[in-house]
């Protein structure tokens, strides 16, 4: 009977553990859903832990995955605060009630264009979309670094372009919406009222035109990755020539061993940008700690943590120092990005993208 006794002891240990564990978890902990790159997540959570003593955990998920995860666990959320990733996902989350409004005192310091009027989310950084190219591979293929979206369709680049999957990645979704906006502008220029509807959102025709563009681009795409920044490393490794990623992710790679290999260019007809959002999860298990994080993340000093790990997004807090390596938005042409409209169409677009483009074999 000895064996049975040992079994029951083990079982008892289990029972004690999971009765006790949730009770202990209530105090002094915070679980962050973190969307930027892993090392920035580490630096942020460590700094927060050092400052507040709150035991801070994070999970890094790309924004599409994060959104999906919040949706799946909305009745019993695992996370308390969501930090980083393009604001479109936060707008989609707010619309579904997955994040809740919070009147943050610190948000007063953030310029209006970088935050939601209703307080559902506040911007924590800004970054512009660009093309990250491997100069050696480009030279070999005999093409210049792309300076327009049309350049990416060059037949020489067949199989040498990569981007993430818009369903999982906010970066890729930003790229998609940028093309939607450019198509809407073109339609509007040809005939007023065809590019944008009365509310200023791009029309169905503009979205269709963007899908046509990405269907063409699909022939040049090697692989749709899960995470937005991943194509940049593929370009660095020389596996592809051009990655469609945020320019700060390209700069980060240049800082971390790919200097002289990678070059950043921007499309001259205009590029999209992201406001990295932050929001408090509805029914957060640790609401107090989440609000502390929220206030803390908007401080100038906190927004200077990024550059220490080569994350060179622009801070939203005007008092935070700007790294000289960061992109200067006044030097590039930035489109008029309608975040409300993009957030509202996110789900429909990503599903359509998955069905029509990502699964289609290239010609």
């Amino acid at each position, binding site marked *: 009977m000895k064996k049975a006794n040992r079994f029951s002891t083990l079982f008892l240990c289990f029972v004690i553990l999971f009765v006790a564990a949730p009770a202990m978890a209530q105090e002094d902990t915070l679980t962050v859903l973190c969307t930027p790159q892993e090392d920035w997540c580490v630096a942020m959570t460590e700094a927060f832990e050092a400052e507040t003593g709150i035991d801070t955990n994070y999970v890094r998920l790309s924004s599409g995955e994060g959104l999906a995860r919040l949706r799946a666990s909305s009745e019993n959320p695992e996370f308390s605060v969501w930090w980083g990733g393009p604001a479109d996902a936060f707008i989609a989350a707010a619309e579904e009630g997955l994040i809740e409004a919070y009147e943050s005192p610190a948000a007063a310091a953030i310029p209006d264009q970088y935050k939601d009027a209703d307080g559902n989310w506040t911007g924590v950084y800004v970054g512009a979309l660009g093309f990250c190219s491997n100069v050696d591979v480009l030279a070999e293929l005999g093409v210049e670094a792309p300076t327009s979206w049309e350049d990416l369709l060059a037949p020489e680049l067949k199989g040498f372009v990569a981007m993430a999957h818009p369903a999982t990645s906010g970066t890729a979704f930003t790229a998609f919406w940028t093309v939607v906006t450019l198509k809407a502008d073109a339609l509007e220029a040809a005939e007023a009222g065809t590019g944008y509807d009365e509310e200023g959102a791009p029309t169905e025709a503009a979205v269709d035109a963007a899908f046509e563009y990405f269907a063409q681009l699909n022939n040049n795409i090697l692989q749709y990755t899960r995470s937005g920044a991943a194509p940049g490393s593929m370009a660095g490794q020389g596996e592809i020539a051009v990655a469609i990623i945020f320019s700060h992710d390209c700069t980060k790679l240049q800082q971390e061993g790919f200097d002289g290999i990678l070059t950043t260019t921007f499309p001259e007809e205009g590029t999209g940008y992201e406001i990295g959002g932050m929001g408090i999860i509805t029914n957060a298990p640790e609401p107090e700690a989440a609000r502390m994080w929220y206030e803390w993340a908007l401080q100038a000093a906190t927004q200077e943590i990024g550059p220490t790990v080569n994350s060179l997004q622009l801070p939203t807090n005007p008092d935070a120092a700007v790294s000289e390596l960061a992109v200067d938005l006044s030097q590039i042409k930035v489109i008029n990005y309608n975040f409300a409209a993009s957030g509202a169409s996110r789900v429909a677009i990503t599903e359509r993208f998955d069905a029509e483009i990502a699964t*289609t074999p290239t010609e």
Partner: protein
Amino acid sequence: MNAIRSTQQFKRLNAILKDPLLIIVLLILVFFVAVAVLLPIIAMVGESFSEEGLPLFQRYLVDPVYQTIILNTLIMGLLVGLIGTAIGFLFAFVQVKLDVPFKRFMHLIALIPVISPPFALATAAIVLFGRNGTISRGVFGSRYDIYGLDGLILVMTLSFFTIAYLNLRGMMEALDPALDEAATNLGANKWRVFRTVTLPMLLPGIASSFLLIFVEAIADLGNPLVMGGNYEVLATRVYVTIIGLFNTTGGAVLSVILLVPSLLVFLVQRYWISRISVISVTGKPSGKPQTINHPLVRWSLFGAVMFICLIIVLIYGTIIHGAFVRVPGVRWDLTTEHFDFIINGIGAQAMRDTTALSVLATPIAALIGILIAYMVVRKEFFGRNALDFSAMLGIAVPGTIIGIGYILSFNTPIMLGDFVIIPKLTGGQGALGGALAIVMVYILRSVPAALRSGTAALSQIDPSIEEASTSLGADSARTFRRITLPLIRPALLAGLIYSFARSMTTISAIIFLTTPQTKIMTQQILNEVENGRYGNAFAYCVILIAIVMVAIGLLYLVVGDQTGAERRLEGGR
């Protein structure tokens, strides 16, 4: 005759009923299999046949895009199965039938893939043979496109050929050389002997190796995720559908489509191949196997095996080297920054959690496997075959299906009235921060191996030894502990090693189950690979391989690979 048989059965059944401990153990085993294995699979199949699920079947099966994906999956499984079996056969043949140097080396190389973390091979293959690969471009100057079917075949055959190797080597060693001799004496030359005697005898082994590799290949998630290119397969589609679109129903439907070939293969393997086996195992073969001396055959086969060994060594060398350079493939300056990042960062928790959960799961899995084997081989009870079959499903079913099944079954507590039978297991709020679900998955994925080796070992032992113990007054627990367990110690060791290695390296089954509170190394490796930080990924792989090696060493020390009798003999000398 029938009457006698049923009275015998009744007697044995009666023997179980008289032994309360046996009943308790049996109930625990049945409960485990029902809850941990069957319930999630049933929940997943149920979800796919739900009102939202059924129309999706139609959509997926009619859509030419999905037809291509299904076809891709099958083609890949077929090719990997064929090539993997061929390589396994080659290794086994050289090992058993040829008199060549470096046999021990070849054997060890063939075993390495078993303890290899997912993604390691694929990532190293990209560094070596990718568009900018050290070998493909550095040596041959070509921008070889490894992404797609050819790359997948390369990494998958290297990952899975070990299955065929071990399987076929065992069978070749068991072949009675007397048969070869008889054929030779009748005037057949070596080639004819090989073709008409050896090959037919090995056919069941070849078929079952092929099928096992086929199932592993179509279920594999890690490799297609890293180097699939635009070659889409079902496993990655399930992953994107769930992780990206969070369409659990769609994922379940695709999983059922993936489940059909897997289960078919499992059934064929279980009920058909085991029957057509022409080998009569009559104990140890008499005499030494004949070796083949024809120099051309001998050295060309030797060369082929050494070439494959070379590729494997290159790949693992790249992993180890890559862990210590700044950017593998691009910047070769030496650094320990990857290890710093892991050990001083999130990796420390991942190492701790993964090892702890695997250590917890390993003995339980081995014990459950051996106990089920004991019950199935030695005892007679209703549903004996069903118990064995259900436990084996743990590995026959692709990992992603288990994962989805767990989300569907255990996301809310299972209640009977007001009484919680099983608490919520998945997600951050689940029991032990979701760790319990992961341990359960580790266990159910490892039980089949322990069960198989346990069954094989028990079938070799004459039940009269145990009956003698019972006659002398020992109860069944004592008999099992003092007589059976020491006799099958090698099987137990194999079960333990396999369980631990499998738990540490599993990804597809737990990818949907990791939570903020539990960090799993394979999941972290995926993150690093996905973001192209190969240095960090390789460093994780090196640490993981080191942990598994240390554990195997410890298990050898603690459990030992000899039966109790062999120990006594040596001790007495």
